[in-house]
């Protein structure tokens, strides 16, 4: 109970910090706090594997990618770190509309059956980590992932492969690699000349 409110406060505060920070690096730090608090909240919801996944994939891979891109783009002449921050004309209507719809949602929630819905007990004693049949354990998740949900799992592999190919096409080296005999000869000749020069230009 108290844990939920503490974690929820951290989540909302860090989310607001993420979208309001002046520099993108600070936004990344806010997002990191957000994801860590979310991982703790997943643990309270008996999702052990997804909590670890949140830390590894989001904090470990995606945020590092963000930091890497920020570093890459701000190394040039243009200071990427201070992005434009002017508010578009739709700011006030968007904020008003957002609060109105959020208030409507909260009103509907407080009058719905969900506000009486309590979480059921997980069914007695939690076994050691890895016991199948216990809700939320890693073994339970893995068993479902590799038996019933095998096709979605393979589709994620396909999606990741398509993403890798797309990234290489978009941001990779534009000159195609031509493994021709002529090119190999050129490379060999230039290497031999470099050796003959003895490192001197």
């Amino acid at each position: 109970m108290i844990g939920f409110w503490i974690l929820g406060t951290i989540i909302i505060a860090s989310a607001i910090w993420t979208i309001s920070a002046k520099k993108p690096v600070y936004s990344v730090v806010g997002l990191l706090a957000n994801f860590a608090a979310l991982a703790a909240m997943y643990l309270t919801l008996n999702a052990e594997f997804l909590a670890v996944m949140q830390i590894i994939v989001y904090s470990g891979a995606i945020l590092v990618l963000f930091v890497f891109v920020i570093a890459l783009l701000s190394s040039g002449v243009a200071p990427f770190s201070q992005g434009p921050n002017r508010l578009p004309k739709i700011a006030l209507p968007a904020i008003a509309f957002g609060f109105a719809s959020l208030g409507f949602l909260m009103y509907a929630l407080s009058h719905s059956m969900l506000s009486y819905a309590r979480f059921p007990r997980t069914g007695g004693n939690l076994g050691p980590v890895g016991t199948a049949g216990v809700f939320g354990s890693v073994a339970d998740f893995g068993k479902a992932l590799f038996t019933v949900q095998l096709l979605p799992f393979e589709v994620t592999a396909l999606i990741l492969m398509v993403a890798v190919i797309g990234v290489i096409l978009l941001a990779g080296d534009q000159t195609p690699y031509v493994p021709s005999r002529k090119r190999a000869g050129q490379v060999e000749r230039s290497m031999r000349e470099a050796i003959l020069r003895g490192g001197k230009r």
Partner: protein
Amino acid sequence: MAVSVSSYVGLASVMFFIGVAGVLLRRNPLVMLMSIELMFNAANLLFMAFSRFWLHNDGQIFAFLVITVAAAEAAIALAIVVTVFRAEKDVDVDQVRSLHG
């Protein structure tokens, strides 16, 4: 007093609206991408909460798929950002005209 399901729904919707506000209000492409990640995570939190509510791990599987798609999306989007803004002086998504086709 235990935490009800609607508390999680409320927290996730607040988080989602913060993400929407980030996409609408910021013009920096990286911060917009981070706001999209916030929205993904709000959806994930709902998947977790309802998965726990029904004591069924299909929601967790779906959250796993969402994490995968989010990783792929972040990689592609960051590649586009790098490609577009490598030569640009200004980082403003309103000024980008090269993606119009």
